[in-house]
């Protein structure tokens, strides 16, 4: 069987790099980007990685921010999404078979492409992405997706590769020497618990897993584990996933910008989360039959009274109609809301999701086909208007107008690529 060939292309420090594209002042300064609500660090430029941990709460790094003049940003997802789309579009010009794995990574399958010098090819790809989008990327070629992931860890931490590593060009021994550098928990697909299980058997590096004893493997490893071993040995078991199956659960939940203490504000918040979840549901052409809400106080603040509640509602028929979802969420809230607490977080999740096309018609239920048509049509218009004129141009009154409880985003940069009113001025 012919060996397969994959490439993984990964944008370096993606969110931080995006902030640098349109901001000359931060080009030479350290950058960190904060999570929703400005609470934790979710991206760091290389020059500050030594001093700031991923996920570190922002209050812990105030001294570092002052000392190194670190530039702090809230997550500007409108900007990141468009730069990501441009990055993926450039990759599509290089290779027709692309799996968009996340906002900042794609797998390419190049098995049938005739490329003489992969390292050269990787460099050309890197230059093109940088030229078009301003984003630095790293590239790794290997015979399996799992190996490209491992190579990526190496190429990102060792600047001597210049951002491109071709594992297929290395002899088996050279590959093994690199695999010996990778800790078992850093192998793609091996979770924390699985890693400690393997460590108990003395398997601490990717290389040791690759050469684990056959009978031991068959006896102790799961199917997933066996597949990882095969991938480490160069046999591709994980094909490119060109189309993601629709999600089986949809969640919309956020921490509030400030604590919520009244039921009417909580109604607003939950109505917003229900509306957002409905939007996601319609985007993938699905319907949901079950809705769960939850509300809770901040469990880290041990000095205040604690409460957490959740409630699940089976919807009378599968739906993606926002008012149906909002009504269910508010009904649920009425069942569990308790006065006298300071709420910190809430959410809505949708489950029992079916594709719209598979809807079963329930002749005797509350469901009427013409009614469903009307609802779908209304949401189609609402979604279209919001897509064209911007998020929340049209919304339901129950969602509230001021929404003071909304998450904090004090350090948001401009939406340079999606709003005429926020273009970069020069």
């Amino acid at each position, binding site marked *: 069987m012919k060996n397969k060939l994959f490439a993984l292309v990964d944008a370096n420090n993606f969110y931080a790099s995006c902030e640098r594209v349109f901001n*000359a*002042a931060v*080009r*030479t300064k350290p950058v960190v980007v904060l999570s929703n609500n400005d609470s934790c660090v979710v991206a760091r430029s290389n020059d500050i990685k030594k001093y700031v941990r991923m996920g570190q709460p922002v209050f812990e790094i105030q001294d570092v921010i002052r000392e190194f003049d670190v530039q702090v940003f809230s997550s500007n997802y409108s900007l990141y999404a468009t730069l990501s789309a*441009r990055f993926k*579009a*450039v990759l599509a010009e290089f290779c027709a078979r692309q799996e968009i794995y996340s906002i900042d990574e794609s797998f390419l399958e190049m098995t049938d492409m005739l490329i003489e010098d992969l390292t050269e090819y990787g460099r050309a790809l890197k230059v093109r992405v940088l*030229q*078009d*989008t*301003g984003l630095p990327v790293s590239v790794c070629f290997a015979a399996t997706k799992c190996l490209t992931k491992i190579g990526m860890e190496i190429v990102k931490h060792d600047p001597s590769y210049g951002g491109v590593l071709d594992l297929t060009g290395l002899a088996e021994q050279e590959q093994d020497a690199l695999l010996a550098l990778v800790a078992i928990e850093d192998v793609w697909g091996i979770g924390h618990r699985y890693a400690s299980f393997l460590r108990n058997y003395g398997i601490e590096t990717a290389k040791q897993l690759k050469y684990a004893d056959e009978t031991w493997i068959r006896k102790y490893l799961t199917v997933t584990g066996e597949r990882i071993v095969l991938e480490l040995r160069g046999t591709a078991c994980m094909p490119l996933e060109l189309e993601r199956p629709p999600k089986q659960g949809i969640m919309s939940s956020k921490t509030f910008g400030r604590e919520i203490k009244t039921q009417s504000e909580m109604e607003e918040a939950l109505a917003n989360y229900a509306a957002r979840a409905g939007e996601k549901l319609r985007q993938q*052409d699905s319907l949901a039959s079950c809705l769960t809400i939850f509300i809770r106080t901040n469990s880290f603040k041990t000095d205040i009274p604690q409460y957490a509640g959740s409630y699940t509602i089976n919807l009378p028929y599968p739906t993606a109609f926002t008012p149906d979802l909002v009504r269910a969420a508010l009904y649920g809230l009425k069942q569990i809301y308790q006065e006298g607490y300071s709420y910190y977080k809430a959410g809505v999740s949708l489950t029992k999701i079916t594709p*719209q*096309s598979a*809807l079963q*018609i329930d002749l005797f239920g509350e469901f009427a086909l013409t009614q*469903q*048509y009307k609802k*779908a*049509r209304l949401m*189609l218009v609402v979604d*279209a208007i919001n897509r064209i004129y911007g998020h929340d141009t049209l919304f339901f009154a129950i969602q509230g107008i001021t929404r003071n409880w909304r998450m904090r985003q004090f350090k948001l940069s401009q939406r*340079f*690529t999606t709003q*005429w009113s926020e*273009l*970069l*001025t*020069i």
Partner: protein
Amino acid sequence: MIDPVFRNVRFLPGTVNAGFPSPASDYEERELDINDLVMPHPTSSYFMRVSGDSMTGACIYHDDIIVIDRAITAAHNRIVVARIGEEFTLKRLQLMKGRKIFLKAENPKYLAMEVTGRDDFEVWGVVTWVLHRQLRRI
């Protein structure tokens, strides 16, 4: 079941002619789209807004919108968005004898600036179009 007709619905003006088929139906083409003209490279083109009067000699005025293409080579006499230190600037790039590089304003009020050898200088992209509004309110 939701009819597939509800996906990607477009609302067309006018009425549907139920009688004779249109003689033009075999010749339908897409309407002109200004994006095709000003952004032939959609992955590398960006919009910015102009502020100030330093480029009026090149017919680029305050509040105009410019299109910048990062995929185009910054050659002599091209108008570029460049970074100098912590700022972006819009100027004409001049590559002179002896490998000297200047950024020239198109307005006698401003002096040309030499950037030869500066390591905090880079060209961000090349200006390909200027969109200038004629009517303030439409």
